């Protein structure tokens, strides 16, 4: 009998192996209510409505391209998260919305997002449009003078928003959250069916 593995242990091991490839245990998704869709101008210059993304999970980030530290870090992490999630067999899309529409023209967004190999869409608009989107999404931004070259920084909300396939806001990632955690959240959405 020494070669036999007890049934309970065998089941537990099977579950463990399945767990490695299956649904991750973290993060615990929330339901923050319906995401308010908006229409802005994409880096292609065409108008783009976030409602057109329904059916796919969205990882949404607000930032600006003149930002030296946090935005490029988050753009890199977001791109990696989408690549990890796609390797898992899921199909999220990343969306970047500028909080500095005067500087971030569609051309500028094309240059910068291309450089980061950003797997998604970059959006800009008139200052009024961006203000309205920020308000409806609950994103803070304030342009603040700075001493050096560009003459300003934009203090802003840096959380990454996860919107599910049905258009509900399901999670807020904090800066520093690793790409794997974001990909795992997308996997948990997929497991909800």
């Amino acid at each position, binding site marked *: 009998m020494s070669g036999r593995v007890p049934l309970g242990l065998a089941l537990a091991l099977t579950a463990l192996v399945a767990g490695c490839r299956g649904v991750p245990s973290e993060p615990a998704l929330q339901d923050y209510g319906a995401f308010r869709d908006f229409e802005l101008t994409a880096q292609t210059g065409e108008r783009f409505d976030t409602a057109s993304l329904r059916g796919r999970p969205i990882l949404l980030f607000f930032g600006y391209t003149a930002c*030296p530290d946090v935005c*490029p870090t988050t753009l890199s*992490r977001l791109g990696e998260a989408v690549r990890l999630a796609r390797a898992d067999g899921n199909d999220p899309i990343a969306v970047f919305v500028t909080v500095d529409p005067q500087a971030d023209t569609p051309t500028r967004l094309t240059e910068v997002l291309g*450089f980061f190999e950003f797997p998604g869409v970059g959006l800009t608009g008139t200052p009024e449009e961006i203000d309205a989107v920020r308000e409806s999404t609950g994103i803070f931004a304030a342009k603040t003078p700075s001493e050096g*070259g560009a003459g300003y*920084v934009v203090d802003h909300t*840096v959380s990454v928003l996860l919107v599910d396939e049905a258009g509900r806001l399901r999670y807020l990632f904090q800066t520093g959250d690793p*790409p794997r955690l974001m990909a795992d959240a997308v996997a948990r959405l997929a497991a909800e069916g």
Partner: protein
Amino acid sequence: MPPFDHVPLADRLALARHVLALSAPRGEAPTPLEITPRFVRATPPGARRTAAYLTLRNAGADDALIGARSAAAASVSLHRSAHEGGVMRMEPVERLALPSGATVELEPGGLHLMLEELRVPLAPGATVAVELLFLNGPPRTVELPVLREVPK
């Protein structure tokens, strides 16, 4: 009057440290302030700004980082990305205290050197020399590799 007698004691000590540091043969005696280069973030075309990261480990007496400059940028300044309630604010840091025994990390999402008005785009594979200025110790130049950030 002997030379330097008009110089206050603290300044004379600083001067002495300066001279000692300058005259110390290369490769001898561990430097009390250890600087470990990390990286400068590579920039997209047309970018005017980027950030530089490194680690400072002070095994000597209390000191402070009070400035930095580089031929790669018109201005280099120390900033902290301060996170509060999901909002990130960039705060200038005039003087970064380096108490004896302290290790201070300049890393993404925290303290960083902001390079502004870049003279050229910084491509991966290049290196950037940054000179660091200290309150007590002599200026130090650190060579930082230009990297695309590896996400973690």
